C-alpha cells in the first residue's frame, strides 16, 4: 500500500512524515528534476505501508518543477491513499489545494495540523462539519506535540474516501467541462477536462478542443482560464471556511517580526546571524577536523607506514586512506556543522525573512530575494546550491546566480583558509580573505547585471510564521543536505586521490611543476611545487591544501613557504576555478558555455587577485 503526503509548504508535512516513518528515510530524485522525494516504510497490522512525502506545493495546476511532478504522480495513480495535510491556522488558503486534490477522486483523508497553534489563537474548527461538507474523514493533529499522529495511518488505511464535494465553477466553465467530457470516445473525467482547459494533458484531441473553448472563455471574461478557476476555487474555499471555522476576532500576533523584518535592526540581525554561523562553522570545523585527522594519522596511517608492502600497493592504499581522511575531515566537521546550523535557520522560517530583507540588494545584481537562499547554501557546498538555482525565475537570473554561487566560499575552501591562513598567518588574515572574496562577489554581481541580457521576474515567496525548530526535523534536513555532499563528492574524492597518488608515483608531477613554474613563481611568487597543489585543487578544493602538505613533506608549512606565500596560495586556490564536481553540475544545469565562462572567469579572477597581492607585498611588507 502506498500513501502520499500532500500539502502546502510549511504545514509541518515533513515533521509528520518523520513521525510516521522514523529513521531510515530514503531520498530519491525524480528523473529529470532535482526535486527531492522522501519515502519511508511504516507498519500497520504487520503489513508494510510505504509513505511518500511529496514536495510542498500551492497548486496542482502550476508550471513549476515541483507542481508538475506532484501532478504527474497523482494523475498516474501512484498512490492508494492521499493524506492531505492542511494548516489549521491558515485553513482558508490551504483549502484551495485540498479542493484541487478532491477533483482527482483518489481515496484521501484530511489532516488538520498545527491544532495547538490554532487553539492558542482561539481558532475553533468544526472538523465534523468539514467532514460532512467534503465527504472526507478529518483528523485534527499537532505534529510538534505528537498529538493524534498515531491515528493517521489507521484512519488512512480504513476510512479514506474519494469525497463528495465539487467546486461549483462559473456556468461557462461548467458548460465547457460538459462539452469536453464528451469529446473523446471513452469520455474524459472532469479533472482531465479542467486541466485541458489550462493546456495540461496528453490527449491531443481533448487539448485541441479545450484550446478553442479556452480562447472563447478568455475572450468573454477578459482573463486567463487559470485565473477564473482560481477565483472560483478560492470562493468555494472561503465559503467552506466560513462554515467550519470560528475565530476570535482581532488577535494579531506579530512578536519578533516587527524587529526582524525592518531595515533597522532587521538587516543588522540578519548580518549577525549569517556571520556568526560562518564563524561557528569555522571554529567548530577546525577543531573537529584536527581531531579527526590526528586520530586518522595515529590509528591508520601510522600502522600503515610500518607495514612492508609493495610500493605501488602501498601508494594506492595510502591515497585511498588519505581520501577517506580528507572526506571525513571536511564532511563531518565543516559541512555537517554548516548544514546543521542551516537547518535550524530553515526550520524556524527565518530563511524566507532573509530573502525578504535581501530582495533590494539582490535587485542590484539583477537577481531577487529568493536567490540569496542558494547563495547561503553555497557556503556549505556549491554543488547542491547550483542545483537549487532552478527554482529561481528567468534564464538571466539563473546565469548570474550560477556565477556568484560558484564564487561563494564553500566548506572545502573554508578548510584551506582555516588550515593555512588561520593557522600559519593569523585569524585576521583569514577573515581578510573572506572580505576579498565577498567584495569580488559583489563587484561581479554588479558587473554581470549590466552585461547579462534577458528579463527579470521578481520574487513571490510565502513568509511562514516563526517556529521553534524541532530537533527531529533539523537532523533530518541536515542529513538530506549532507547526503547530497557525500554521494556526489566522496566517490570523486577517492578517485582523484588515487589518481594523484599514481601521478606522484610515476613522476608526472615533476614534469607539471617544471612547465608551470614561470607563472607560479614569477607572477605569484610561489614555490614551484605549489602549482601541482593548485592544479589538484581543481579536483577537490581542499586537496590543494593537502597536496601542498604532502609535497612540502611537512605539516608545518612555514618551514618551506613564507607567510605571504601561504596567504597568496590560499587566496588563489579559493578563488580560482570551481572544483570538478561544481563544473560538472554547472555543465548539467546551465550548459557547456556557462560552465566554461565561469571557469575562465574565476581563473582570471584568482590570478589577478594573487598577482595584485604579490605585487603589493613586494612594495610594503604585509605580514
Amino acid at each position, binding site marked *: 500500500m502506498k500513501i502520499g503526503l500532500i500539502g502546502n509548504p510549511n504545514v509541518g508535512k515533513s515533521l509528520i512524515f518523520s513521525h510516521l516513518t522514523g529513521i531510515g528515510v530514503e531520498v530519491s530524485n525524480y528523473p529529470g528534476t532535482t526535486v527531492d522525494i522522501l519515502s519511508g516504510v511504516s507498519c500497520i497490522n504487520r503489513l508494510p505501508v510505504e509513505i511518500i512525502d511529496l514536495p510542498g506545493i*500551492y497548486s496542482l495546476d502550476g508550471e513549476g518543477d515541483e507542481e508538475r511532478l506532484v501532478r504527474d504522480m497523482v494523475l498516474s495513480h501512484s498512490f492508494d491513499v492521499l493524506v492531505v495535510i492542511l494548516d489549521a491556522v491558515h485553513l482558508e488558503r490551504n483549502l484551495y489545494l485540498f479542493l484541487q486534490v478532491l477533483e482527482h477522486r483518489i481515496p484521501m483523508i484530511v489532516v488538520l495540523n498545527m491544532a495547538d497553534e490554532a487553539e492558542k489563537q482561539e481558532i475553533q474548527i468544526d472538523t465534523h462539519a468539514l467532514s460532512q461538507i467534503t465527504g472526507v474523514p478529518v483528523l485534527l493533529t499537532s505534529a510538534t506535540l505528537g498529538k493524534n499522529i498515531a491515528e493517521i495511518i489507521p484512519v488512512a488505511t480504513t476510512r479514506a474516501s474519494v469525497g463528495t464535494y465539487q467546486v461549483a465553477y462559473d456556468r461557462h466553465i461548467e458548460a465547457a467541462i460538459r462539452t469536453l467530457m464528451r469529446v473523446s470516445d471513452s469520455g474524459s473525467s472532469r479533472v482531465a477536462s479542467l486541466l485541458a482547459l489550462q493546456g495540461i494533458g496528453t490527449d491531443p484531441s481533448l487539448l485541441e478542443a479545450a484550446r478553442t473553448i479556452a480562447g472563447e472563455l478568455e475572450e468573454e471574461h477578459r482573463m486567463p482560464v*487559470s485565473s477564473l478557476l482560481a477565483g472560483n476555487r478560492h470562493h468555494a474555499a472561503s465559503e467552506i471556511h466560513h462554515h467550519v471555522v470560528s475565530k476570535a476576532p482581532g488577535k494579531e500576533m506579530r512578536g519578533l517580526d516587527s524587529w526582524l523584518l525592518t*531595515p533597522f535592526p532587521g538587516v543588522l540581525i540578519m548580518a549577525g546571524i549569517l556571520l556568526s554561523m560562518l564563524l561557528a562553522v569555522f571554529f567548530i570545523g577546525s577543531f573537529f577536523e584536527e581531531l579527526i585527522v590526528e586520530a586518522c594519522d595515529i590509528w591508520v596511517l601510522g600502522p600503515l607506514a610500518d607495514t612492508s608492502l609493495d610500493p605501488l600497493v602501498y601508494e594506492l592504499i595510502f591515497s585511498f586512506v588519505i581520501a577517506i581522511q580528507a572526506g571525513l575531515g571536511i564532511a563531518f566537521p565543516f559541512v555537517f556543522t554548516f548544514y546543521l546550523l542551516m537547518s535550524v535557520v530553515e526550520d524556524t522560517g527565518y530563511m524566507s525573512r532573509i530573502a525578504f530583507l535581501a*530582495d533590494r540588494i539582490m535587485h542590484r545584481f539583477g537577481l531577487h530575494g529568493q536567490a540569496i537562499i542558494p547563495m547561503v547554501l553555497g557556503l556549505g557546498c556549491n554543488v547542491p546550491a547550483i542545483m537549487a538555482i532552478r527554482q529561481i525565475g528567468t534564464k538571466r537570473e539563473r546565469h548570474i546566480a550560477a556565477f556568484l554561487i560558484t564564487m561563494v566560499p564553500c566548506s572545502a575552501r573554508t578548510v584551506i583558509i582555516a588550515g593555512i591562513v588561520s593557522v600559519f598567518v593569523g585569524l585576521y588574515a583569514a577573515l581578510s580573505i573572506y572580505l576579498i572574496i565577498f567584495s569580488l562577489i559583489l563587484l561581479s554581481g554588479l558587473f554581470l547585471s549590466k552585461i547579462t541580457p534577458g528579463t*527579470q*521576474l521578481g520574487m*513571490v515567496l510565502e513568509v*511562514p*510564521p516563526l517556529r521553534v525548530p524541532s530537533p527531529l526535523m533539523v537532523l533530518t534536513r541536515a542529513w538530506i543536505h549532507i547526503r547530497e555532499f557525500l554521494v556526489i563528492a566522496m566517490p570523486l574524492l577517492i578517485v582523484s586521490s588515487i589518481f594523484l597518488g599514481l601521478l606522484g608515483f610515476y613522476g608526472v608531477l615533476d614534469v607539471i611543476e617544471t612547465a608551470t613554474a614561470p607563472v607560479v613563481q614569477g607572477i605569484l611568487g610561489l614555490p614551484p611545487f605549489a602549482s601541482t597543489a593548485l592544479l589538484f585543487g581543481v579536483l577537490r578544493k581542499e586537496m590543494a591544501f593537502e597536496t601542498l602538505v604532502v609535497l612540502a613533506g611537512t605539516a608545518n608549512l612555514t618551514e618551506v613557504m613564507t607567510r605571504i606565500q601561504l596567504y597568496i596560495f590560499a587566496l588563489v586556490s579559493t578563488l580560482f576555478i570551481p572544483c570538478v564536481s561544481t563544473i560538472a553540475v554547472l555543465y548539467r544545469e546551465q550548459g557547456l558555455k556557462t560552465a566554461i565562462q565561469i571557469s575562465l572567469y574565476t581563473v582570471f579572477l584568482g590570478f589577478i587577485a594573487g598577482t595584485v597581492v604579490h605585487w603589493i607585498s613586494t612594495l610594503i611588507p604585509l605580514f
Partner: protein
Amino acid sequence: MDVAEREDTLLSLMRQARLTGQGGRPEDIAGHTSLSVEQVTEVLTELVRSGEVTYQNDGAYHLSPSGIRAAEAIMRRHRVLETFLQEMLGMEHELAHAQACTMEHHTTDDTINRLRGFLRGNRDCPVTCHGHVRRCSFKSLADCAHGDVVKIDAIRGCGRGGRLADLGLIPGEKVMVKQRMADTLLIRVKDCDIAISPEIARSVLVEVDQ
C-alpha cells in the same frame, strides 16, 4: 429651430460631401433624415444665415469651414457615445448607433470628454469624480504604504499570475501591506504573509478601500 434638426442637417451635408464631393439639395437631405423637404429648406436657410452653410447657384447647399468644424464635433460626440454604449454597456451595434444618434445632440462637451477619459481608462481623471472611482484610481500595490488595506482590482501580465492566484491574490481579494522594505513588500492575504518584489507589486492593480 430644434438642435437635433439643425445638427442632423449638418451631418447629412457632411455625409453628402464625403460621398459625392458635392453639395446637397434639400431633397437629398430629407431622404437621410426624418424631416420633410419644407422643414429641411427652413433649417438650411437658418444655417446660411448663421454662416455654417453657403448656398450656391447650382441649387445645392455646401458646408462652410465653420460648418465642417461643427459637423466634425458632432461626429466625434457620436463616436464616443456609441463606443461607450457598445463596449461598456454591451449594447448591440444597431441599438447603440440609434441611441447615440439621439444622445449626441444633447450631451455637453464636458460629458463627452469625461466619457472619453473613462473609455481610455486614463489616470488624469480629476480626483473629484466619484462616479467612476473603480476605473479612475488605478494604483498598484507598489504605491501602497505600510499598513494600507486595499482590494485587488486586476493583475497585469501573465508571468507570475498563476502563482499569485494560487496564493490567493485574485481580483476582489483584500490585501494588507504589513511591511515595506525599500520597494519590497510583505503583504498579508488570507491570513498568510507573502513577500513580493517591486516588479510583481507593480503588476497588481488595486483600488483603495474606502
